[in-house]
């Protein structure tokens, strides 16, 4: 429980997080939060003699209030794309825009929350010190009570003044989530935010992401955890070998033409001896059933087939190897 600074009432920690005190300035929610157009990044090695194309003409956008999953096997170019979006890498060609502005613009970056992959911070400071410094750098009020509420929300209550030196990887990830949430971001860019977290912590992260989406924020979520993306994302972009291989809403990606799986056995044997199955589309279902019966086989079950995001991912990435 914590105290709502506005009313002085005791409230549950994350139920009424007082956004109004922290709200960043200049929010214009009319533009597309993130648009990436024909983005290409080539890394040159050995004095430019050899080169490696990490991402190749990828385009997509994150719409207002949606969670976009960004998927791809290791080395597909996800982190490179994120670094180009954040201005940490300069693209070889193409462009990334945040609310129509260049990523270098500090005014748009102050509306961002960023959760890096394997976050690390100068370990001589405590979480409260970090939140205080980031508040100053972001031109937000430096209010200890707010910092404590934020740390409570991400599960770091009781660790406010402990130096980061003694933090586990999961705790550093929680701190990075707190720093990302600090400006009440209009867009959160998350690079493998739950990698290495235990299932409980993953669930807490997911809940916070959904709360942020419900608040109106847009989320760009890069993740290896397909089940996580399937659970919370509205749309997904899949990369392979630096190229975008598919994009769409989760409903569209998971929708399959009506396919049925027919299980049957030979009439005179027990199911344990000869259980067979075939997959047919809806148009051929009746003909197949008739044919099996004519051949004297006994049908023991007919089920509609379903596709998971893993099926979509493996099919789109061709097994996922670069």
């Amino acid at each position, binding site marked *: 429980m914590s105290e709502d600074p506005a009313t002085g009432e005791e409230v549950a920690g994350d139920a009424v997080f007082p956004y109004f005190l922290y709200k960043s300035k200049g929010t214009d929610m009319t533009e597309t939060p993130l648009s990436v157009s024909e983005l290409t990044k080539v890394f040159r090695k050995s004095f430019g003699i050899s080169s490696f194309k990490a991402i190749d003409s990828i385009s997509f956008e994150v719409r207002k209030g949606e969670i976009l999953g960004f998927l791809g096997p290791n080395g597909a170019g996800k982190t490179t794309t994120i670094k180009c979006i954040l201005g940490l*890498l300069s693209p070889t060609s193409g462009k990334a825009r945040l609310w129509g502005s260049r990523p270098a613009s500090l005014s748009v*970056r102050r509306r961002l929350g960023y959760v*890096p992959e394997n976050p690390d911070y100068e370990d001589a*400071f405590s979480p409260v010190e970090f939140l205080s410094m980031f508040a100053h750098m972001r031109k937000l009020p430096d209010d200890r009570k707010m910092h404590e509420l934020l740390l409570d929300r991400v599960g770091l209550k009781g660790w406010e003044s402990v130096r980061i030196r003694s933090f586990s990887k999961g705790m550093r990830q929680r701190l990075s989530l707190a720093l990302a949430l600090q400006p009440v971001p209009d867009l959160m860019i998350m690079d493998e935010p739950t990698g290495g977290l235990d299932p409980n912590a993953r669930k807490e992260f997911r809940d916070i992401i959904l709360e942020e989406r419900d608040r109106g924020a847009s989320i760009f979520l890069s993740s290896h955890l397909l089940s996580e993306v399937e659970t919370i994302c509205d749309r997904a972009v899949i990369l392979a070998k630096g190229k975008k291989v598919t994009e769409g809403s989760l409903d569209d990606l998971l929708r399959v033409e009506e396919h049925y799986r027919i299980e049957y056995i030979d009439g005179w044997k027990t199911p344990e001896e000869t259980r067979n199955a075939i997959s047919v589309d809806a148009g051929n279902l009746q003909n197949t059933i008739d044919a099996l019966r004519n051949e004297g086989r006994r049908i023991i079950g007919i089920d509609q087939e379903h596709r998971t995001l893993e099926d979509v991912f493996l099919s789109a990435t061709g097994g996922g190897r670069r």
Partner: protein
Amino acid sequence: MRSVMTFALMTLRSLLRRRTIYGISMVLLLALFGIGQVPSFNVDSEGTFLLDFGLFGLEIGALLLAIGLAANIYPRDREQRTAMPLLAVPLSRGQYLMGRFIGAALVQAAAMLVGCIGLMLILVMHGHPIPSDLFPAALLLIVEGWFLLAVVFFFSFWTSPPLNAPLTIMLFVVSQMTVLQFVELFPQASGLMRFIRLILPHMDVFHIKDPIAHGMEIPSLYFLLAALYGLAYMGFMLAVALAVFRSRDLK
């Protein structure tokens, strides 16, 4: 500016929590007190000896402090990825560089002032007067130290720390040389050597230990012009360092 000062304060606190600064300062103070223990051949020249070697020690201290403080800041931030969350969201690269530089410059100035006070104590302990130009000379050494700090930051954006130190020391040595001394290194290419010397900094302007040690009076205007020269060159080095930093990818 608020962002830069906050980050500078963060850098200052971070550097003060490391042991490097205390190690270098302790070595500097021990060296100064060691100079005080060196027996002089002539009692009359002891004050000159103490001032000469003391100011030389402070100058070397400024060089070591610059390397010790700054050579590892950016490479460490890059390798440990501590720069990413900062540069991705609240800070521009210019703010990052200025914040890191100001934080390190404050630590260096404090260490140099401590060294200067140490030298004054040694002079008093040996019964010698403190020359009126000692304090301005110490301020000039601080400016020299800041310039060296800017050089170290510049090198740190495109070399590793083990390479940064010899490059900075080489620049320090070369920039103390006169044109003639420099040309003598390669007399066959005297024109080229003169041109290179022209564009390299002239750190000999900070070399005032000899006149101070021998009791010569230095005009105030000299201190002012030398300090302005150092600050201008420092600004130039920081601008070049920023241009290099902006062109670098943060992989």
